[in-house]
């Protein structure tokens, strides 16, 4: 077996077979064995806990399955798909989910880039700010949803109090009581929680932009904004595309951020496809329909990931090896 790091550092060198040495803690295994041994746990785990559930989910989509009465499971062909595709709630959920995703991504990107620019300096104490600003990413969704309910409580929450006390509004805002406000609230929560992710990725990229480019631009007489447009943005282009595609795919499928805050309400106005799938499986006890929704989501996902792989240079990278 040859060793190949794929780091593109010239042709791999053949090595002599390992010799036995005086101190041996493990039995001597050939490279072949080691290689296969090391990948084995992943194969096993992957098959059982990644591949199998997905296949099972796809299979369930073609059955009518009530978990309380497993004995009456029966094959129904495309009936589940017909059901969801003709269900107005499915389309509402799809539309709402799309709106939610796009608006969230928009704000996350704008804010994320801004904050990353802010953090990309070597000022004293910047490390502390960096830590604190990345904080929301690690907070459990349950925690932020519950805190949200508390601070945005229309009668006793501090946000409304502050808004009224500073005369920005006259009457309490009902953050979760109307479809539009509920949608805005869930977007706000999503932006709060995941902007740090954008910040991390953008910041990592920013920090590898060579200073000379900025110096050259400054020498050419470019102001701060011009420097941003001409130097920073092009450097960020690739990472932004990747981040936006990634975040779009993930946000579209998010369940907890909506469910824990509004349960999909008021009415069904903040439903997205994940919430729809959950409700079909649990409230309606139709696991088949829930699975069919999942399949539809996966198809959309597949399209999205193909886009991502294309865009992030799957083909380009391998050519260099």
């Amino acid at each position: 077996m040859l060793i190949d790091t794929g780091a593109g550092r010239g042709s791999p060198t053949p090595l002599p077979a390992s010799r036995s040495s005086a101190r041996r803690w493990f039995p001597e295994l050939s490279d072949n064995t080691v290689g296969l041994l090391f990948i084995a746990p992943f194969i096993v785990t992957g098959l059982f806990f990644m591949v199998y559930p997905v296949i099972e989910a796809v299979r369930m989509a073609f059955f009518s399955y009530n978990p309380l009465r497993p004995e009456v499971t029966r094959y129904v062909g495309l009936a589940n798909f017909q059901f969801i595709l003709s269900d107005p709630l499915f389309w509402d959920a799809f539309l709402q989910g799309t709106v939610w995703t796009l608006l969230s991504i928009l704000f996350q990107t704008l804010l994320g880039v801004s904050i990353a620019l802010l953090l990309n300096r070597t000022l004293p104490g910047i490390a502390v700010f960096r830590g604190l600003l990345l904080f929301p990413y690690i907070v459990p969704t349950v925690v932020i949803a519950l805190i949200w309910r508390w601070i945005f409580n229309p009668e006793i929450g501090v946000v409304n109090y502050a808004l009224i006390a500073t005369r920005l509004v006259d009457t309490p805002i009902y953050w979760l009581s109307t479809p539009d406000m509920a949608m805005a609230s869930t977007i706000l929560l999503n932006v709060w929680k995941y902007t740090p992710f954008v910040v991390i990725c953008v910041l990592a990229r920013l920090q590898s932009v060579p200073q000379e480019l900025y110096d050259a631009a400054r020498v050419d007489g470019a102001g701060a904004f011009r420097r941003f447009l001409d130097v920073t943005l092009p450097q960020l282009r690739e990472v932004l595309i990747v981040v936006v595609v990634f975040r779009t795919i993930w946000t579209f499928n998010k369940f907890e951020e909506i469910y824990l805050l509004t349960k999909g309400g008021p009415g069904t106005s903040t439903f997205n496809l994940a919430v729809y799938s959950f409700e079909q499986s649990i409230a309606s006890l139709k696991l088949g329909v829930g699975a069919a929704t999942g399949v539809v989501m996966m198809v959309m996902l597949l399209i999205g990931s193909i886009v991502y792989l294309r865009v992030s240079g799957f083909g380009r990278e391998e050519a260099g090896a």
Partner: protein
Amino acid sequence: MRPSRPISAKSCIHRRDFLASGAALALVTSGHRSNAQSSKTGTVRVWGEPGPYGGVAVAAMNEWAQKNAPGLKFEIETIPWDGVYVKLMTDLAARRPPGLISVESPIAMQLMAEGLLEPLDDVSQTVGRDRLADKLKWEYFGAWTSKQYIMPAHHQPHLLLVRTDISKELGLSDPDGWSWNDLANAARTITQKKPEMAGICMALGRNLCTDYHFAALLHQAGGKMFDQRNKFEVAFDSPETAEALEFVRELQQFMPKGAVEYSFLQVVDAHVTGKTAMSFYWGRTLGRAAEEAKPIFEATEAFNHARNPRTTRRSNWNDFQGWCIPARNNPFVEEAKQALTYYLKSTPWLVKYCHSLMPNVAPVFKDQAESAELRNHPFYQSKARTVDTYFNTSLEHASSTANELLQGVNPFAGIVHGRSILAQTVQKVMIDKMSPRDAAKWGARELDSVRKENIQLVN
């Protein structure tokens, strides 16, 4: 609640001999010994709704366990009201049902019709078939194909709660005599004269509370979801439904602005914090007010609902809560039966159960209802009339989604509530601005699909 050390071997043998010789004659049906020792170990999970009373019953059962099944521990598992359906799936479908369930009748009836429950005729015989309090019947709690599957736990109506200080201040008439119009006018007056207060509050969110609140209005109007006398055909697309929806729409203008997302918690909050002068609720509001807002507690009284002008009905939604035992995958069926019997035969424990949250849980057995100890509670001094309304007079007007207008049990209610169909119908009018007639049609279609998918339950 660890069981204490088991009783000495000597008395155990003594009891076993006694049983073996003669007492077996006194026992009924299933052939088990009512006080036999059980050597099983483990935790018997007992589902209950949020509230202290489940814990009381479990304490009683642990008392039984100490003597008869020292290896067992009964543990209460609180199920949030809107979480019952998740639990049904995760626990029952996972073949890890609880040992014992205390649940309101729509879900109990659903479980019963699905064949998931153990028949409890032996328990009901031992507990006493003629022990039920007045105006209560065993069927209300759960009888199916002439077997009793569910034992009464308590009954719990939701009534019209009124801040009598406000109503007196504004010169309103006695709420006990109100019709729907009077109620709406009172709400309007309060909202106009008291700007920081809402006139009335009920739940309008997509949840179980709204289902229940609306069901009462539906029944007051004489409407129903299913026609028990006609093979449970859907009867929801009716002028009565539209009338009830119209009434809710009229009342909404006098409700707190956030009402469209209110569930159980928020309605209680609204009343106890003085944000509303009137509300629809169960007795829990008074319990909480007594703890947190004494002036509001003193001023609040409960009345039977305003009568519908056309039908003169004052229906309330009563949960007719019952105890039931999952039949499948349940290793503790016998122990649960015995512990339940022990608890239900003990008047002191039954009284404690009621006392734990007055006047939320109402007594269901004669001895429990008439006991002097029950009256040994401060609420009987301060709120005697309200307690009586909850415990007794509400039963004249009792109704339930599982037993509409008490004209017959339907097994679909649990499923209806699982999908919040009634709440969604209400929200179609309140949020989506559908006309009541169209919303009724929509609701009827949803109910019809429930009926079609589960028709085997009634065949």
